[in-house]
């Protein structure tokens, strides 16, 4: 079979989940988490991720999440151990009456946990995701990424945060650039200057318009994330394009807020469903890669420590 198609085609991305189904999963998980005093949490998380991945489809075949509660529970224990060691080091140096060394070491180690968590989380999530049995993968190098992360953080600190947008884009380029989908490679082409300009414009106009421009800012951000993403394999390419408008975001966000407020939070499942439907309805994918010819290239990776560390550090937004 030909690896690249002669004509460019559109790929169908859809979210087919139902709010009521997701609500059922959330509530059953909630019940089990309460009854087990929280121990069920990793299993609950696995079930939720499985549902969301399984409800997302590409060309009428759904994605899969193979991660299990057991893996994430083990990762959870390891993550706790890492934090215990971290505080142990802090305590030891304070006990030795070296408080400055203690704090310095503590913060360096704490900052080091972030790239390790992000790296681990990417490796785990990607390796445990698949489509038609073809696994995703993350090929970043932990040491390289950690050093880069320290460099970016250093620049961000000495520029009093101004370097932040460049850091965000460098990180995205690195992370997504190392994602594989079988033998297809991801690429993200973000530029710090563009991203900085986009955010400054969004920030100022949002203030001037008393918040109304915020929806259009959101639209610009979404577009920036989607339109700079592409997939390549040899001469084949898939490009993504956002069709969402500021008005669409206005409708999505205000309605979501109303649902949450009037259901006292119980409508959360419908909010997530609406949001995911929105995302996949407003992303167009077009290109000439023949998706019937992907081959398995990525290995299994079942260590969820990074995933759980990210959970502790609330790094969900980085994914």
């Amino acid at each position, binding site marked *: 079979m030909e690896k690249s198609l002669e004509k460019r085609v559109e790929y169908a991305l859809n979210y087919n989940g139902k709010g009521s189904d997701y609500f059922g999963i959330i*509530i*059953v998980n909630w*019940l089990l*988490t309460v009854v087990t005093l929280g121990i069920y*949490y990793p299993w609950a998380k696995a079930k939720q991720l499985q549902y969301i991945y399984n409800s997302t*489809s590409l060309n009428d075949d759904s994605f899969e999440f193979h991660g299990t509660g057991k893996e994430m529970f083990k990762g959870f224990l390891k993550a706790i151990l890492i934090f215990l060691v971290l505080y142990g080091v802090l305590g030891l140096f304070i006990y030795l009456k070296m408080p400055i060394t203690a704090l310095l070491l503590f913060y360096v180690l704490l900052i080091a946990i972030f790239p390790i968590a992000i790296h681990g989380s990417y490796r785990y999530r990607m390796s445990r995701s698949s489509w038609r*049995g073809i696994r995703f993968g993350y090929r970043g190098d932990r040491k390289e990424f950690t050093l880069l992360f320290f460099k970016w953080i250093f620049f961000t600190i000495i520029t009093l945060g101004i370097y932040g947008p460049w850091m965000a884009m460098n990180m995205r380029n690195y992370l997504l650039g190392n994602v594989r989908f079988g033998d297809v490679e991801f690429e993200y082409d973000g530029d710090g200057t563009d991203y900085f300009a986009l955010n400054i414009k969004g920030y100022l106009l949002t203030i001037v318009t008393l918040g109304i421009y915020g929806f259009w800012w959101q639209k610009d951000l979404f577009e920036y994330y989607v339109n700079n993403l592409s997939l390549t394999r040899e001469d084949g390419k898939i490009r993504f394009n956002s069709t969402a408008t500021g008005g669409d975001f206005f409708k999505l966000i205000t309605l979501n807020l109303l649902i949450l407020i009037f259901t006292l939070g119980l409508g959360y499942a419908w909010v997530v469903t609406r949001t995911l439907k929105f995302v996949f309805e407003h992303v167009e994918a077009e290109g000439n890669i023949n998706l019937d010819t992907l081959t*398995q290239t990525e290995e299994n990776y079942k260590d969820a420590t990074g995933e759980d560390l990210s959970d502790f550090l609330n790094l969900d937004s980085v994914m």
Partner: protein
Amino acid sequence: MMNNKTTAVFYDGNSSVPQQIELSLNKLNATLEFQMSDGTHCKWLVKDVFFDKRATGLHLKYGSEVIQHIKIKDDHFINTIHHFRRENGHISWYQKLLDLGFAAHFGIALAILGIIGLCYVYVIPWAAEQSVNLIPEEYDNKLGNSAWAGNEYFMNVDSKKTKLLNDFAKQLNLKNTKNLKFIVVKSDEINAFALPDGRIVVFTGILEEMKNYNELVGLLGHEASHVNNRHSMKMLCRSLSGYLFISVILGDANGIMATIGDNINSFQSLSFSREFERQADADGFKILLANKVNPQGMSNLFKRLKQNNFVSIPEFLSSHPVTENRIEYIDKMVKNQKITTINHPQLESLFAKLKQ
């Protein structure tokens, strides 16, 4: 045997090439059987297969390292498999919980919320209050000391009146278990407060509002009762445990719930403080009776504070809310009890000096 056969799509776990297969369910051996495009025959034990019903059809997963997939769209065959699995007890308990449907899930949600609510309103405050007894009084002193140390710098203490107020208090039985120290601070603010270590701070602003020594006795009785009942520590334990409870229960569910929870907690703290104010009023009232001072002084003070300051609410009332009810409450107690009062010339003269 037409029922037990269908066409389906098979993915071998090594490439994304869709293979059309003829899939059959062998009920006798409890296996799913098909032939791959290279001619290999496959037999999967039904109990080893992972099933998932999705919008795109029924998905079958098999294997752990190399995961093979089958996608079935034939509704009839999907039903056949479902019945077979149910008859053989292959449906997991988790799936059964999910299959209960929306109404049951909604009921479960309400029940969990109800239980959490009951715990929050009754169990947690009770447990927190019990735990206060385990905390040594020494900790109250530390807490009060550090609070005072943090504020002392901003307070202009009137040492002459401080001595007078201490003499005034010495004449009274405040039912205190620990040493009370009275401090008068020069300030227009109409306020007084008690710290957990037994320091009671009275601002000159509130002294100026008073017309009779019995009002001052009422105020001191009220503040002393806060100390006697360890209200600060109780408040701390309650709001801390309430906060912990809310964040543990709702924090994992989702961020929105946690935010709602936080707000409920601060609202609930307000009603705790109301309860404590009422208790301090009641105990302060008893102190007035025990000292044979006219308890009307207490309600007179509240009434005056309310009247004279209708523009800006005095600090004392805003941190000690719902005055209307409290005045009524005191007036009712005054009416319902036999009160014997005697003259206190010494208190009267000390009060006059304090007013100077």
